């Protein structure tokens, strides 16, 4: 299972790519495989603010709805509208076109609470 080196990970299987004060957030390849066929995604509205650990989005497979948590605190500055038309992007390209939202980091120090690739790999038994 792919666990890119340039990302940090939440225990709840979200990844975050940090560029300056912006974080791009999605779900991991492991998460999409567990969720199976994703048929609906509801990314958060731009302008909304979340604390680390808040429910920021919902993705649904045929069988179940799953909450997606924001790994960091901040304000949403972009959402991936393409997921509304093509939720399967979460399955086919979870680290790329399947990104869910971009958030302006309120407190970059929160990143240290997230897992590095090695500890996330250990968590999912890779």
């Amino acid at each position, binding site marked *: 299972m792919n666990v890119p080196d340039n990302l940090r990970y939440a225990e709840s299987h979200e990844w975050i790519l940090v560029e300056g004060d912006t974080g791009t957030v999605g779900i991991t390849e492991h998460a999409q495989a567990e969720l199976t*066929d994703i048929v*609906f995604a509801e990314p958060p509205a731009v302008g909304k603010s979340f604390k680390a650990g808040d429910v920021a989005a919902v993705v649904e497979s*045929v069988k179940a709805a799953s909450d997606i948590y924001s790994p960091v605190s901040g304000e949403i500055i972009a959402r991936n509208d393409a997921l509304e038309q093509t939720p399967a992007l979460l399955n086919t390209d979870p680290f790329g076109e399947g990104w869910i939202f971009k958030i302006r980091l309120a407190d970059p120090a929160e990143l240290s609470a997230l897992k590095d690739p090695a500890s996330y790999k250990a968590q999912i038994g890779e």
Partner: protein
Amino acid sequence: MRTPLFDSHLAAGGRIVDFAGWEMPVQYSGILDEHKTVREAAGVFDISHMGEFFVSGPACAGWLDSLLTNNATALATGHAHYSLMLNERGGVIDDLIVYRLDAEEFLLVVNAAKIDEDAAWMKSRLAEGVTFENRSADFGALAVQGPRSGEIFEKLFGRSMPHERNRVLEIGDGFIVTTGYTGEKGFEWIMPAAEATSSWERTLAAGAKPCGLGARDTLRLEMCYPLNGSDLSPDHSPLEAGLGFFVDFSKPSFIGKEALLTQKAAGPARRLVALKVVEKSPPIRPHYPVFLDGVQVAETTSGALSPSLGCGIAMAYLPAAASKPGQEIEIEVRGKKFRACVHKKPLYQKDP
């Protein structure tokens, strides 16, 4: 509990979930793929968790007629029919398939979650001249479903599958009926538990793809086949559920008849309707609130994203006055309301 096929499910990549105390595969390749397989080719489901009761003896047909809504006496040997077992209030205890094996022998196939309750209910009402045996643990069972199930039948049994629905065949120590829970052609095959694994393997080798409970649920919901425990309950009658066709009021008596007659005279207050969401929405799930003119009137009993139709579908008990096809309602998902319509059953129909 596990069926005789538990290891086969793991070997086929099945993802195991709890279903009424049974460790069952919810999917293998994926629910959407399995759903499509059954609509376009052929899939096989493990239904070994379902219960098998044998009822025999000179008085058995009349006894079944006193406990079930459909007419067992009128059922010809070699045929099967759908029937319901009701409580005194006319509520549904279980829905089942009744096979007539012989003049004085029936096989009843009941829901896994209800085996103990059904057996207790029936045994406590045993009559002279009737033998009742719960042999659920002795059998495995497969459902082969899809337009290509006839080819699989031929490969398995070296003869052609009967065209007629609800035909019963006894092959070896097993029983077959041309029925199913998907709306497609197919058959259900009950065999001794010791033959379950080889039967499963032969069915896969004949070209059926393993399918799990997830696809079974979306397939049956597109057809508006009710699921006991979700769409049927001891508090709802078959008349409310739209299953009046399977109730024979000409029988002198059966448990629940009086209550049904009263309900029939007044007209059921609620009806189980099929709902189709008419705008883009999240998948609908059970227990989502249903609104009529802004007021909550029900909750969904079943719901899904229909893989065949690509929209949200559901069932719910609506007030009778609001149960006609075309009736507009709303279904609430996470605080947001989505427009839906009452739809004629079934929700999905194959192009002719």
